[in-house]
């Protein structure tokens, strides 16, 4: 059986598929980094942002931080099981990670619904523009990650393409790292 180029070619010492994921993450650093740096500059130059940030719900933000940290543990467990050739177990851990993603999105949806109904919409001022852009971009990554995880879990269940479990795990941890910085910036610095 022929093997895909993503797992067989490793001129750099890393399988090409994994190298591609690292490249994606390097570009993501520039995307999220640029956005967070822009927010930070405005936050430091505009003291009124502190007053606007007082309206964000710290308890829900903190709950989401805990949910993502826990889902990261599930992702690393999925990788561990895949490494030992236990595809079905890896798939189950991936499903639990997706459960974490859905919990995160439900909490975020509830939070946004509450904020929008209070009148804090994206066009209200620069703070809320940053808030919805940064949290929204992050939520898009959560949705994308969850969909990819479901696809990978389908193959993993049949003990196929187990190397992909590690790749989606790396991506998922990055999504967690981004939230680790978004949480204090948007919810704590008031």
């Amino acid at each position, binding site marked *: 059986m022929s093997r895909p180029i993503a797992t067989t070619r490793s001129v750099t010492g890393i399988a090409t598929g994994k190298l591609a994921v690292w490249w994606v993450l390097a570009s993501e650093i520039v995307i999220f980094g640029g956005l967070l*740096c*822009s927010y930070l500059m405005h936050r430091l130059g505009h003291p009124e942002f502190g*007053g606007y940030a007082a309206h964000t719900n710290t308890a829900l933000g903190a709950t989401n931080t805990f949910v993502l940290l826990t889902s990261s543990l599930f992702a690393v467990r999925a990788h561990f099981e895949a490494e030992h050739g236990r595809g079905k177990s890896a798939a189950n851990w991936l499903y639990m990670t997706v459960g974490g993603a859905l919990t995160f999105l439900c909490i975020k949806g509830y939070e946004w619904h509450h904020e929008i109904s209070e009148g804090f919409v994206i066009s209200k001022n620069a703070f809320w523009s940053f808030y919805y852009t940064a949290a929204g971009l992050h939520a898009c990554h959560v949705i994308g990650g969850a969909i990819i995880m479901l696809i990978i879990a389908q193959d993993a269940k049949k003990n196929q393409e187990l190397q992909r479990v590690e790749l989606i795990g790396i991506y998922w941890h990055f999504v967690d790292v981004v939230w*680790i910085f978004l949480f204090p910036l948007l919810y*704590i610095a008031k």
Partner: protein
Amino acid sequence: MSDAAATHGEHDEAAHLAHYMKIYRTLVVLFLVSVSGPFISDHFVHSKALVLVTAFGIALVKAYLVCAHFMHLNVEKKFVIYMLTTALVFMFLFFAGVSPDIMEHRGRNWENVAAREETASALKEQAERAAHPGEHEGAEHAE
């Protein structure tokens, strides 16, 4: 596989899992500290430094732990770290190049009138809301 090798393999697996759980517990403890720091500052000591250290200092430690132990960057090829570091350097270059124009509203030969006025009016409005909290209820909907 011999019994000894199988036992060794099981030990190895258990050690790996225990390591992941240890990192996870550390992350949860750090998360609790990062949340409690601002709470303590708000209600007891009123220290901005405490908020900065507990919220942002601990965020850096948490990010390091996730990157090193969950993403396995501690055992990954060095050039991956160089690649990611290059992206981070570009991010800091962007910050260093642009921040003086954004963080300051006035320079030697320039003035950002719009930003200065926006800040002044917003701070005034926030002070009024703080002084008369009941009066502005529902005003958000009207805006």
